[in-house]
């Protein structure tokens, strides 16, 4: 029997069958698409942002970044909010909610002024949406009264959050832009304005590639291009950082966070959950692979829970957060040397090159035998070698060396786990 765990979770007072949602984007922009994603197992959808203002989209509107032939490391898009009529979109939400009462539908909205925000919120509630998300963060709007220009301005964020809560009693989630130094500031403003939850992150302002024929960025639209949002696997580490800082902010304590950014696999989703997110959202990986990726998210997290003996998500949500500490609290007396299994080594010398050119010249190279050896005196335990070695299992964690604690900064309480993770 396939391992199946209870992945249900309460999010802003709404019961969700699992925490895996579509983020507000092209992947959830009408009835047929959303009903297909529900059939394939997604717990809910942040329906593509609805406004009174209808955008005029460009062609082409996507580009992607690749490395060594591996495409979609990062993805850039120039699409704005829904280009369908406002009433039509709310009608889709109403139809979906009636057909799928157990699935969660969040109406994402974006107005140009307080009245619009208020009216959109009212319409969302009338359409029987479960929740409302305010898009304060789209970085490629053609008007500066909307999008990430709002999310970087705490006064506007608070004002519009207030308008939404006036227009509807549904819990309101503010979606944040990463194109800012401290996301906590607008997030606090949104909460002050009445928001109950925060989503992060929206896409990162970017230029993925330069087209040398047209001498502009990509995609090229009639000879020109624009800076616009970057997402996908490359964005995940940046998103995790923002999310962790929101979760650690004293003023935002208890505010549920929905994590967004580069989720493709169950592990990517789990990263957000163990940091403390109660919900995760996905778009880019769906654009590349389709809704079906949720099957392995559900199965993968279930197997992990089974392995660890967890019965529900609340058993582990947020358990990694306390171990993320400021850099000055990292114990500097701890050093873990690499160890080499030379029986598996194929002699490429990559560890030697990287250690010499990029680290501390601590690996010696036997040209005749084509094998590395470690100069323990020079090795600082940085593990660059482990990260570059192309063969699984050759370089791993070796002996732990404790350096004298001259500053007496840390208690003499040593952790039992030296290094479990092996970078694979």
């Amino acid at each position, binding site marked *: 029997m396939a391992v199946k765990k209870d992945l249900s979770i309460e999010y802003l007072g709404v019961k969700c069958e699992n925490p895996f949602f579509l983020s507000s984007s092209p992947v959830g922009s009408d009835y047929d698409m959303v009903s297909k994603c529900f059939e394939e197992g997604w717990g809910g959808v942040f329906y593509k942002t609805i406004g009174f203002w209808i955008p005029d989209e460009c062609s082409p509107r996507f580009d992607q970044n690749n490395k*060594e*032939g*591996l495409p979609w490391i990062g993805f850039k898009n120039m699409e704005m909010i829904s280009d369908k009529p406002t009433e039509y979109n709310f009608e889709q939400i109403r139809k979906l909610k009636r057909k799928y009462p157990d699935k969660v539908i969040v109406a994402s909205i974006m107005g140009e002024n307080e009245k619009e925000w208020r009216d959109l919120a009212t319409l969302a509630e009338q359409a029987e949406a479960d929740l409302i998300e305010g898009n304060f963060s789209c970085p490629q709007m053609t008007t500066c009264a909307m999008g990430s220009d709002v999310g970087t301005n705490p006064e506007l964020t608070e004002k519009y959050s207030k308008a939404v809560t006036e227009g509807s009693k549904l819990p309101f989630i503010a979606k944040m832009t990463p194109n800012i130094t401290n996301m906590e500031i607008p997030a606090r403003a949104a909460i002050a304005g009445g928001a109950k939850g925060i989503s992060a992150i929206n896409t990162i302002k970017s230029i993925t590639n330069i087209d040398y024929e047209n001498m502009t960025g990509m995609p090229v639209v009639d000879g020109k291009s624009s800076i616009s949002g970057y997402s996908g696997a490359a964005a995940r580490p940046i998103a995790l950082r923002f999310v962790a800082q929101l979760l650690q902010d004293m003023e935002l304590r208890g505010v549920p966070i929905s994590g967004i950014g580069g989720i493709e696999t169950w592990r990517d989703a789990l990263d957000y959950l163990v940091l403390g997110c109660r919900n995760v959202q996905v778009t880019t990986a769906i654009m590349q692979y389709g809704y079906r990726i949720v099957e392995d998210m559900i199965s993968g997290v279930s197997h992990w829970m089974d392995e660890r003996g967890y019965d529900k998500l609340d058993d582990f949500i947020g358990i990694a957060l306390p171990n993320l500490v400021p850099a000055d609290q990292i114990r500097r007396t701890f050093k873990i040397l690499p160890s080499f299994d030379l029986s598996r080594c*194929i*002699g*490429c*010398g*990559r560890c*030697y*090159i990287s250690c010499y050119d990029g680290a501390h010249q601590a690996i010696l*190279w036997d*040209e005749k035998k*084509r094998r590395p050896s470690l100069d323990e005196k020079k090795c600082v335990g940085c593990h660059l070698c482990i990260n570059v070695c*192309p*063969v699984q299992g050759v370089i791993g964690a070796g002996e732990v060396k404790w350096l004298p604690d001259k500053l007496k900064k840390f208690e003499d309480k040593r952790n039992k786990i030296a290094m479990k993770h092996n970078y694979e």
Partner: protein
Amino acid sequence: MSKVVKAKYTTEAVCGFTHRTAMEEAARCLLCIDAPCSKGCPAGTDPGKFIRSIRFRNVKGAAETIRENNILGGSCARICPYDRLCEEFCSRCGIDKPIKIGKLQRYAIEQEKLHKMKTLVAPAKKKNAKVACVGAGPASLACASELAKEGYRVTIFEKEEKPGGVLTYGITPSRLPQSVVDHDIAQVRRLGVKFIMNTEVGKDVNLDEMGFDAVFIGAGLWSAKKPDIKGTDLKGVYTAVDFLKKARTKKNDFKPGNVVVVVGGGDVALDCAVTAKLLGAQDVKVVYRRTLEESPATMDAWHYAMSLGIGVTTNMAPGEIQGAKKVEYAVFTGRDKKSEMKIACDTVVFAIGQKPEDMKKITAAKLNEKGGIAANSKGKTNMAKVFAAGDIVNGGKSAVEAVRDGKEAAYSIMKYFEKKGVK
């Protein structure tokens, strides 16, 4: 029922890389510190460097590296026995399978052609010395190019209509298309090397009377061996040289027969078998006197032949060809002296090696015991101004080894001229 590959004689057997698949393959490369692949290439093509160029999106730089080091980079990319050269040394073998070095080389040269790159340029100021190269095969082309790059005036004499030697006349186009050979030779021509075709040295011209300051002999092996058995003069009996050349020049007008028996176990034998099959023979069998592991052909070549539906029998040597006027049966006896085999067939091709033609007509230099030119690994003969390399010296090896030896001979020739004070 086994599914066999159906192919056309002139269609290439293996398709090349696109930008994307080339990059995927280059990404598999471990970029070793000492690039053992580069040490494994006789001609010094330096795959370690050109694969790194592809990986860092510098395809033109990759093509430059190949062309500067190996004038026949395009042809070698198709026909090299990688499995015992660069790819055998590839460190990736320790993980799974080697990088497809030959295929990446082919990709880079295809880009060279596409972008009409002009990598090699001869110096405007010519040196005051003239060199004649006998034969327009791999050794001569390599020698002539190295000399021309340094400003020497080089003339190649070739008895056939087209240059390329074994590349043009001795390999199936499914393995090496003529356009690839022609593209390589175009690079030699760009260096200002003169080609005099349809001209046999020692018969049509006498080099001694033409005022050359040095002579390089890269004549190749063009006299085919036949076993000393009964029936080899019957109609339907070919030597590999004749068989491949006829196919290559007449293409689809050449009818190889219906039941073809190829005798031999080298790349040439397999080229004959593949040629016969692709030109419409119903049944083709290769009979080799030793075992597969003793055979000089690469395992890839055996696999390809078998994929076309060609059968193989080992440890059987030819005893007699029977028939009235034309071939009717080929009779073999076993290496064990007990087994016997009689095959009804209409065509027999002997691909059991080639030997030199009469070299005395060309040069007074000392010959080796096989009738080729006696020369050392630097291409020096017993005569100061006569140099030789390639199959005519080594008795028949790969094209990439002929390139290496042709280059070495060119360096010897340059040293000879430098000593004489040529400027």
